[in-house]
């Protein structure tokens, strides 16, 4: 276990270094810098030069890189140019909404997938099972933005049950927060639960053919007991990877949902940072997301070890 952790830690350092360096170079290769973005169309050359100097963008590329690297090693991601605050603080201000969305939608999707799959395993021929079977691919195929617009049209604009957009923190006003979260979470759940259900079903189907189930049935267990106690725990292994990776993707990739529902999360922060060429913030967010990917994968691996004794032994 310690070996695994140490190896992962080594990989983490390498990954962060590579991602950070690549990001540093890529955003500087793209034309336009923060000074151009701030001063706009009618900037005078002297103004640009002054601002670049004030922002520390006037040195040679390798000097800027070394300065940045020196900062990062000490855990300092620098100051955001547009937000006038340390990058970590800015990320902290925006991670809340994204995490809330990702955690809630992943948890709900996971529960839905388990419930549906259990039902399907116990009653494979029931009409409901067939319906779900048919509609899951549809859930995956519908684009997020289209589903968002339809839900807004129906539940916000026509029925007026829910707000069309906005975000309230769960801690400041839980009632308002739940209202504003229903639609974006629903959109994410539709796509995710479909993905999880399909993956889990494949896994369950594989598990159902195993010989040990015959023993369980002979012992006198009901079909529900067989599925819950024996099939599901074994079938969950592959889906953990999917849930983990998907969670990390959500953190970095729900820009569209955040934009449609006006949620001030990490995705919209990154988009804004790219438009304004806020170099330190872009680098900070990408590093943060890379770190999150690695951390989530590590957690998934560790949970394998907890769930499956075979992994621990090997």
């Amino acid at each position, binding site marked *: 276990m310690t070996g695994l952790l140490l190896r992962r830690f080594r990989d983490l350092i390498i990954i962060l270094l590579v991602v950070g360096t690549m990001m540093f170079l890529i955003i500087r290769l*793209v*034309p*336009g*810098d923060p000074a*151009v*973005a701030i001063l*706009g*169309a*009618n*900037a*005078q*050359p002297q*103004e640009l030069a*002054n*601002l670049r100097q*004030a922002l520390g963008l006037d040195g040679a590329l390798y000097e800027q890189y070394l300065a940045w690297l020196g900062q990062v090693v000490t855990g300092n991601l620098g100051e955001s140019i*547009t*937000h*006038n*605050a340390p990058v970590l603080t*800015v990320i902290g*201000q*925006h991670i809340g909404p994204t995490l809330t969305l990702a955690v809630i939608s992943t948890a709900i999707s996971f529960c839905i997938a388990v419930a549906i799959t259990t039902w399907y395993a116990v009653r494979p021929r029931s009409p409901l099972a067939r319906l779900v079977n048919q509609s899951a691919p549809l859930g995956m195929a519908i684009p997020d933005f289209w589903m968002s*617009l339809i839900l*807004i049209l129906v539940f*916000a*604009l026509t029925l*007026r049950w829910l*707000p*069309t*957009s*906005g*975000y309230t923190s769960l801690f400041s006003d839980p009632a308002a927060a739940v209202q504003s979260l229903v639609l974006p979470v629903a959109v994410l759940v539709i796509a995710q639960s479909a993905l999880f259900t399909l993956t889990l079903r494949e896994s369950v189907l594989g598990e159902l053919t195993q010989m040990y189930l015959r023993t369980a049935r002979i012992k006198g267990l009901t079909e529900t007991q067989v599925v819950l106690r024996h099939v599901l725990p074994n079938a969950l292994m592959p889906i953990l990877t999917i849930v983990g990776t998907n969670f990390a993707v959500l953190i970095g990739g729900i820009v569209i949902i955040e*934009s*449609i*529902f*006006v949620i*001030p999360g990490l995705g*919209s*922060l990154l988009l*804004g940072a790219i*438009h*304004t*060429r806020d170099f330190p913030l872009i680098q900070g967010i990408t590093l943060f997301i890379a770190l999150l990917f690695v951390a989530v994968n590590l957690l998934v691996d560790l949970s394998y070890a907890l769930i499956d004794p075979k992994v621990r032994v090997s």
Partner: protein
Amino acid sequence: MRTRLNKGRPPATGLVAVAAAGALLLSACGGDQPSSANPDGDGSVDAGEPVVGGNLTVAIPSDPQSLDAAVNPTQVAVHLANTLYEKLFDVDEDNQAHPMLVDDYTISDDRLTYTFTLRDDVTFHDGHPLTAEDVVASLERWQEFNRTGQMIAPDIESIEAVDELTVELTLNTPRYPLIDELASPGSEIFRAELIEDVGAEGFEQEGAVGTGPYQLKSWEVGQEIVLERFDEYKSRSEEDLGGLAGAKHAYLDTITFTVVGDQDALINGLLTDQWQHIMPTPDHYEQLKNDPNVVVSTLSGGDLNVIVPNHDESSIFSDKQARHALNLAIDKQAINAATGGSPEIVEEHGAFVSKDNVDFYSTEGSEVYEAYDPEKAKQMFTEAGLEEGDTLRIVTSNTFPQFNQWAVLLQDQLGELGYNVQIDPYDFTTMLDILQEEEWDITTLFFNGFLNSPQQMPPLTLGAMNSSGSPEMDQLLADYNAATSEEEAKAVVDEMQALVWEELPVIVLSSAKPWAAYSPKLKGYDDYWRVFWNSWLEE
């Protein structure tokens, strides 16, 4: 809890003011319809009794990121600054400067010494009284970090506090637009103590202390900014100047500025009363105009939509004849009709400011603006050395969809004359960089047409971008600063306008009227951007 108040504007005065504004505009526009007397705007005429209390939620497209108005020139920051802070002078709805923090002022005979006496009852949001020291510190910083301030700095000899409430500003050369420039965004008066040692990066939230009718209550970065009524605010007495000038009555308890970037979310939120005031893109004008549950009105000012030819030697348009050929080849009416959203929000004129910017609006050169003659254009292109089959490069941006649309229409119009047009669209920041670094022939932009000093106006000072400019224009800019009377200044403005259409630093397509859509519950709104003092919510 809301209570009714009787101290609102008397309806009759409101009517007179609208009529007067209309008359002013009529005289300025040579008989055209006054743009601000608009039938949909609720104005103050029939709005009823003001109601005190409540919260107004206003959608803004992005977070202001810094509330330091001296260093942050973005529109959202300027609008918030207008409510939080005040300047020595502020502009009315026709962009005319009036005293705001200044009670009285004198100008010496040689026009070099300005003595400002401040109002003695003004306090900052933190309770400190306004003093001459605050003005000196703010204007010193203005010269160092603000674009307009930097532009004026060479002409300023000194700014000194004579006593507690008197400031003396000494110039080394007379400057006609000085008062207007002191009424420009960025010249806000801050507390001296709070801006000490604050550089170009701007002050943090704690520095956002002004003398305006509303003070900062809370700010969740990227989400919302809440302003609350400043109870100690002492209003000026002049009612109905409009814009940023005159009396300010804070009827609303709070104003919440909510960040909404997505256009659909913006409109849906207005329709479901999540917010009560929005400023959407032109393509939504007709839809909202036809919605009975929404009030739509056009606002003061206007954005100049321009085609920019490159005067640099690398481009054919370094030749004046080629620029005039381009002007003749552009079917401006067709472009405006296809991309303006609605004729009601497109003003077709060639002035380098918006029509209601009365001091600077001029019709000089309008025959050049109106001319459209593709055949002659082709002949002039040929004389300038552009052959059929030659390629022109348009660098544009899809950050603002209309830019790309103009480029495509231009490609079509020039294509019919036999020229190849290559369109390179980038995001806006990339585009600005490409314009500096690479060779190009044409680009597309829009500029604020509601500025109040010629040196602030891009069509006259775009040299750094497209190598335009001439000794004649420099001389006119100097002449304007040296003017001694309104007539003299106006004559210079006419010459500038004529020169713009002769040299073609930009080719104006139209002026886009800014507009707002708001809830019928919002009363007393003055059709002036995001200014909500004197506004209230109907019960």
